[in-house]
């Protein structure tokens, strides 16, 4: 027992040090967001605000139209999440459980396409959406998130474990395939639906490059695009930018904390060989 004491202390010292380093940038962001203008730009850098103020948050909403961007981000992320849940769960289930000709070939083809970087298609996609009159709309931001190869893969892996007997019993009872999907399959795969929902919500909320490309009108900006643009104009306003960063990060951190088990399971699933 005495030999264990020292390694344990060393291990926890390293773990705590790692946790402090990991959390410091986020903690400083929160702290600076409550400082008065100019306070963060002093030496030595202050850790806590001298006077706790909400002024930065008030200016974001009154002067900088932040509620507009926040609403845009919510619209984009919620629609991306709902659409991708419906579309990918149907496809993932079919690839796992419905026998149709060409299934394996199509699925392997999709997996192979995972190595193609999204940027390769971005330029023509932009031109296509322009021709369709969709550039500078929320729909254009949502489109790439609607169907995803990784999402289909995730659902399929989980749906493979549904017993065939369960589906056949429903078929014998005369249920149609879509009804079986709705009443039998969806309840069974609920855990992985939560995982997929968190995945899509976080990635559509955090996405930067694509909305930067398709949105030209300031009023349509999502939070990350608006924040990047504001940070160019307000380089000196450290405290204001930190408040903007807090509001951008807060929703995803809250979603993560609430649903972290589901999310981390999804990350680990991605590593399992399919």
């Amino acid at each position, binding site marked *: 027992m005495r030999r264990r004491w020292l*390694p344990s202390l060393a291990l926890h010292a*390293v*773990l705590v040090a*790692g946790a402090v*380093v*990991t*959390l*410091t*940038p986020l903690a*400083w*962001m929160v702290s600076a967001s409550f400082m008065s203008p100019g306070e963060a*730009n002093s*030496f*030595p*850098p202050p850790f806590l605000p001298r006077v706790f103020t909400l002024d930065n948050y008030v200016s974001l909403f009154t002067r900088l139209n932040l509620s507009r961007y926040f609403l845009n981000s919510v619209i984009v992320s919620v629609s991306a999440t709902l659409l991708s849940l419906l*579309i990918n769960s*149907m*496809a993932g289930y079919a690839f796992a459980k*419905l*026998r*149709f000709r060409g*299934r394996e070939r*199509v699925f392997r083809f999709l997996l192979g396409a995972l190595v*193609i*970087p999204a*940027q*390769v*298609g*971005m*330029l*023509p*996609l932009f*031109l296509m959406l*322009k021709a369709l009159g969709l550039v500078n709309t929320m729909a254009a931001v949502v*489109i790439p998130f*609607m*169907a995803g*190869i990784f999402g289909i893969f995730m659902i399929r892996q989980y749906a493979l474990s549904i017993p065939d007997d369960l589906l056949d019993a429903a078929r014998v009872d005369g249920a149609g*395939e*879509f009804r079986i*999907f709705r009443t039998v399959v969806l309840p069974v795969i609920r855990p992985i639906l939560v995982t997929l929902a968190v995945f899509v919500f*976080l990635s559509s909320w955090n996405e*930067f490059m694509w909305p*930067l490309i398709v949105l030209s009108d300031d009023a349509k900006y999502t*939070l*990350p695009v608006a*924040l*990047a643009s504001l940070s160019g104009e307000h380089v000196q306003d450290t405290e204001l930018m*930190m408040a903007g960063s807090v509001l951008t*990060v807060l929703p995803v*951190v809250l979603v*993560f904390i609430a649903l*972290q088990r589901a*999310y*981390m399971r999804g*990350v680990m699933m*991605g*590593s*399992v*060989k399919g």
Partner: protein
Amino acid sequence: MKSAGEGRQHRAGWAFVAPALTLIGVFFFLPVLAGLVLSFTDFDIYAIGRPDVARFVGVRNYAQVLTNPLFWQALFNTFYFVIVGGPLSVLASLVAAMLVSARLARFPGLFRSIFFMPVVTTLVAVAIVWRYLYHPQYGLLNWALGLAGIGPVDWLGNPHTAMLGIILMAVWKNFGYNMLIFVAGLQSIPEELYEAAALDGASPWQRFVHVTLPGLAPTFLFVGVMTMLGNFQLFSEPYVMTQGGPLRATTTVVLLMYEEGFRWWRMGMAAAIAFVLFVIMLGGTLLQMRLARERR
């Protein structure tokens, strides 16, 4: 009865995958193919209004890309990020995974969540935070280095350290993701192997080299390929933190593609850049898979 059921499943199967396949086909595969065509044209700002004025120019865009010094600089910067940042991030992930998986560790779930936290944060927001942390006069990092007697470093303002600054930030942001995958890999190594090695009198280091590392081989391949593919697409960090500067020291291939395509509207040229990058990424993936096979 059986064949009727099969016919029904066949139709239902295609009906279920149709929406997803249509969307992926129209909004991903079609643009990728169109991008290939685009890369052989002189599609530019005039062609955006009137696509019919664009002409085929053969491999001219590729020739221009490959003779453009700025492209080679961007490629060098990207490789710097891939070759230095990638292994650094994988190493940090492995160390973190070993620490949170240690049998002595208390609250492993809490530490795991803390280390994972930066992964879920919005990149643009934390890139702005790090820009202030790197501030040469008031930044927290230089203050901490000052305590250790290291003089102020103008992290993002100096072409020699700017990419390093981006790498440090990216390691902080991403290591939690691969950590989780390593944790899953560590859990898949049978406990008996460790017990057998311990019975043979193997030291902890020997156990790590002869049990843990070989047991993690498939995980290393997965993590290596995914990290490399992600790192080749570096864009947002330099866009927000340095705008590709100073002196182009952090201009990456994707940032160059973005500038060519969406700032100067030279879409043909930008498409050629994208495909050159794609070929390099494909080569890197095949190389890693081959190395992994040879080691076995």
